[in-house]
Structure formats: C-alpha cells, structure tokens
C-alpha cells in the first residue's frame, strides 16, 4: 500500500502538506465508514486505499461492513437498478426483506464513530441509531431519474442524516439537508494506473494476440447493455471504412450475470467476420487493463448510463484521447474539445474517433489536457481532502469557515 510521501512527486508537496493541515483539525474525532462489502466494487476499492491513508494522516478511522443474505442483496440490486432508472418489479415483500435485514444490522453494528459515514443504500437504515453524533450518507449511484417509489422509501431515511454526498450535480435532488458534490477518484499508484514498462505492455498484447500493426481503439467495460459494446462495434465499423484500425472490447467476468453473458455472446457474433476486433473476457487483472489502455490510440466509453465512469479518468490519466458519451459523471471529466470529445450517438462516436486518428497532434493535446485535469481534480489526494473538509463541514454551517 502506497504511503503519502509517494504521492508528492505526482501532486506536489503542497497538496500533501494541506492534507496534513486538515487532518490536524480532525484531532479527537473518530470517523467510521460503513458499507456492504469489504471487497469487490468501486466503493470497497476506494475505501481500501483511502482508509490506510486517513490513518497515516492521523485521522482515527475505522471501516465496518454490514451483514446480509442472498435475498437482501437481490433486493438491494433491484433497488440499485431502479435508482438508475431501469424498470424493476419491486414488491412489498422486497421492502420487508430490506427492513428485516436492516433491523438485524441495527442490532449488530456498533456505530461508535463521531462521524458515521454510510455508503450507498444497503446500510442506509442504520440511521435509526443516530444519537448526538454526526451522520453522512454517500450516494455512489446515478439518481438523476430514479424510480420514485424506491427513492421515496429511501428519502424517509436520507432526511434524517446531517448531510448527503453525490458524485455529479445532475444526481442532486431538492433535499431538506445539506448536500455536497464529491466525485470519486483514481489512485495514480494502483496497479491499474501506475506507470508500467513497454515490455509489460508488449507482453500483455502478445498474451491476447493483439498485433501493434495499426491503431488500437479500446473500450474497457463490463459486457452490459448500459455500456453499449454493440454500439462501439458499430462505431468502429464506420471508422474502419476510412481508417485501418483494431478494436479491443475488454471487460470483467460475467458469470453471475445472465444478461451480461447474452451481451457478450451478441458482441462475439457481431465481431465474428472481422479478425481486427478483439473481445476479451478479462479476469480481474489491473495490470492487464493498465497495459491495454496504454497500448491504445483512442479510448472509448460509449455508455448509455453511467454512475461516474472512472474508466474515463483512468484513460485520461494515461494522457489518452478519449471519446465518451455525455452521461452521468463523464462531462465532469471531459470538457468537450478541451480534454476529450463527448458524443451522443454511434455516428457521433465514429466521427470523433476518426477525427482523433486523423489528427494525432490534436489527439495528443486533448490527452495531455485530460491528464492535467485528472491530476487537479480526480486523484485520490483530492478525494481525501474533500472527505476531510466534509467531516469538518458537519461542525461549521457557514459558507466561509475559518479554522
């Protein structure tokens, strides 16, 4: 696990000094994170890197996980989809299952923090235990157009928190409590983002039999309809008429997701006639993802909906030109024509990819601007700073706070 000093060459000494200054202001406060899983998924990934750094800064931090059976997590998966705006059949029994497990967690979880920081809807009902301590609810989901019934159910809990946190302005709703914008972040020192050698990149390409004889266009994503892999193939086909290139679609295993397997099969079928399309079902191997991103000439993220879309930040951090849909948190990461190109359709995506392939100097400039934008706004150090300011905001209500 990286130490704070290792971030200095990347973000500068002053940024790390500011973190130490802020941590000192939290002396005597214990911060307790609570989520639903210790491994897997973006929340656990961020917490696993953030909690050790908060401790190194001297912020008394602990991380607890709620318990839940299969039925409970099936219900919360339905909630997750419904909050993303997907049609889901949710019955009263589902709400009952959610409350039964929540009641067990209310009994079983020791909420001892001065600041109790609840992540996502699964542990949201723990707010029943609120006393005189400060409670925060962090929503990592795109709730710009939520299923009203699920949102109303959650609202009864949300309004009892001191503050809520969202990843994008478009997710914010009119709430009776304070709400803050804190986008997620990437860790520049993690396997997925750290610098790697050309030899490593070459070895990964050889492993997956991807020749480096022509420009590579890549989308790294689960095989999920919301990531639109079939749309990416269509965009590539349009580009291929004019530019000789390869397409890599790489994503994680979809064993437990029947719809994902179906999407994967459709993508393979659509790619069958073209040996320059490489569809890779990758195990969770962050070095390989890193290598594929670095080997690419253009990176695409043509999502239809997106919680935040950190693959965009990962690509920009590698100074890659990116073509991505104007959805979710992506426009926070890409300012159109300054740090990448935004699109709304397959036609728009193919036009943007062609532009970048045909204008390498423009593509290089967008990529470099993108890297600086990520350095200033989407690295773990900024996330740590925002979280510490968030904790301090619980004790100060003004717009200008002197510490």
């Amino acid at each position, binding site marked *: 696990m990286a130490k704070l000093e290792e971030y200095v060459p990347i973000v*500068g000494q*002053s*940024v790390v*000094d*500011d973190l130490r*200054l*802020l941590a000192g*202001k939290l002396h005597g406060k214990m911060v307790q994170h609570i989520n639903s899983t210790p491994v897997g998924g973006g929340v656990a990934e961020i917490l696993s890197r953030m909690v050790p750094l908060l401790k190194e800064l001297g912020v008394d931090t602990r991380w607890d996980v709620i318990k839940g059976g299969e039925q409970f997590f099936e219900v919360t998966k339905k909630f997750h989809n419904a909050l993303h705006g997907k049609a889901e059949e949710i019955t009263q029994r589902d709400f009952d299952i959610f409350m039964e497990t929540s009641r067990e967690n209310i009994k079983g979880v020791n909420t001892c923090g001065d600041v109790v920081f609840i992540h996502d809807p699964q542990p949201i009902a723990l707010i029943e235990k609120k006393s005189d301590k400060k409670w925060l609810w962090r929503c990592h989901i795109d709730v*710009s157009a939520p299923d009203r019934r699920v949102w109303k159910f959650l609202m009864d809990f949300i309004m009892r928190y001191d503050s809520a946190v*969202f990843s994008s*302005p*478009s997710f*914010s*709703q*009119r*709430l009776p409590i*304070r*709400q*803050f*914008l*804190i986008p997620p972040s990437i860790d520049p020192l993690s396997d997925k983002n750290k610098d790697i050698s050309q030899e490593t990149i070459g070895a990964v390409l050889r492993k997956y039999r991807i020749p480096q004889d022509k420009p590579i266009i890549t989308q790294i994503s689960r095989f999920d309809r919301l990531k639109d892999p079939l749309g990416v193939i269509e965009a590539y086909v349009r580009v291929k008429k004019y530019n000789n290139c390869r397409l890599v679609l790489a994503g994680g295993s979809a064993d437990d997701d029947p719809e994902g397997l179906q999407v994967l099969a459709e993508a393979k079928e659509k790619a069958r006639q073209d040996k320059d399309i490489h569809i890779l079902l990758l195990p969770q191997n962050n070095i390989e993802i890193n290598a594929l991103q670095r080997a690419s000439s253009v990176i695409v993220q043509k999502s239809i909906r997106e919680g935040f879309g950190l693959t965009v930040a990962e690509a920009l951090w590698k100074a890659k030109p990116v073509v991505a849909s*104007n*959805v979710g948190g992506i426009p926070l990461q890409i*300012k*159109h024509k*300054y740090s990448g190109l935004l699109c709304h359709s397959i036609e728009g995506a193919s036009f943007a990819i062609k532009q970048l392939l045909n204008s390498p100097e423009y593509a290089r400039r967008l990529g470099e*601007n993108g890297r*600086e*934008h990520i350095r*200033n*706004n989407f690295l773990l150090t900024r996330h740590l*700073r*925002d979280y510490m*300011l*968030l904790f*301090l*905001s619980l004790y*100060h209500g*003004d*717009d*200008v*706070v*002197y*510490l």
Partner: protein
Amino acid sequence: MAELIRAKEPFRFYTRLHLTELTGLRATTLSQLLELIRQVPGSCIYHHTHRFLQQHQYLSPEPPNDFAYWVTEILGEDELGEKLASIDTVQYSTIRGLREAIAFTIEDYLESNTLAKLKFSREGEEFHFIKSVSFVLPTDCVAYDLNEFAGILRKITIDSIYFHIFEARLRLEKGHNDFSNWIDSVIGDKELADEISRFDPYSHTLDGLRSVLVKMIENRIAV
C-alpha cells in the same frame, strides 16, 4: 539594491480549500437561469464565476465562467455567451455587483432577442446551481520583508495565492487583494502595491499568476 524594509507586522500566508455544495436548483431556459441568478446565495455566483480558475488552472484561455459556457455550448446563444464571458470581473468589488452585472446582461439580451426565451437545454444538460464553501487555514509561512515574501510565493500552494488574490478581494470584500494591502500599509511601498492591484489576475492561469507576482517583486527588490 536598496536595503529591504523589515516589517513590524509580518505577512502570514493563509490557504483556502473549498468544498462544493449542491443546491438541487437547476435551469433549463434563459428565463429560469436569470430568475435563479437573482435568488441564489452569493456563494453560488462566486462558485460559477471562479470555479474555472482552480479546476482548469493548467489551461488558458478557458471559458471564463460557467454561465457563459452553458449559454454558448448548450443553448447555442453565442452572442450572449460572449457578453457574459466579457464581464470584467476584476472591476467588481462585491459579489452583489457581479451578480447584478450578470443578471442585467441576460435581461438586456432577452429584451432584444425574444426568440432566445424559447431555447431550452436537453435532458441532462441543465444548468445546476452549486455553492462554494471555503475553509480558510493559516499556514506556517510568514514573511517579514519582500525577499522572504517572494521566496514563499515561489513555493506556497496555489490555493494560498488564490485566497489572497481572488477570495480576499471579492468574496471577503476587502477592496484590494491581501498582498497589495500588506505591501502598502506595512512595507510602505505604494507603487508596488498599486502595480499588483492594477493587473488583471483573471487573464492568467494560477501558475502564470504566481510567476507574474514573483517577477514584480523581484524587479522591485533589484531597484
């Protein structure tokens, strides 16, 4: 080189870190934008006219404020976008004054361009009103003379320069930036203080701003 004046009252560098607060307020048309610009807290106006300085500090020129960017890129009202981008922020010493200038510019445009009222943003491209919450902290850096001052300026966090130049003058309504105030009232160098006050910090990146300030002080020390 003249002997440097040693201040009785040193300049303490502060830094300012900000947290972004959401309001849940959004506009889809110019009329809604205007109405909300008149209603929202000053912290919102401050955020949307200064955010670019910190988030895009590596890039210049940049869309100078969020209102101009949205009006141009989302509503396609280039002329109004240009007018909003050209508002000379440095001329205003209060957020109230700046808010009035922005509101007047939109109102005036709508009066002579009634079709612009019919334009609306697509779903997902609404203008979201956001606030800046500032946390101001003292640093350990203290200067007693211009030499020490320039030395600290070279290495201090960009947030500190931002606080003393932009936030102190406009948001805290001190009239001038903190550097000019100290150089004039404590060091007694009105000429240098005025030189710093006179120049437009909005037309530089933050690192560019640091270089210009250091150069001004170095030149003064060398006299």
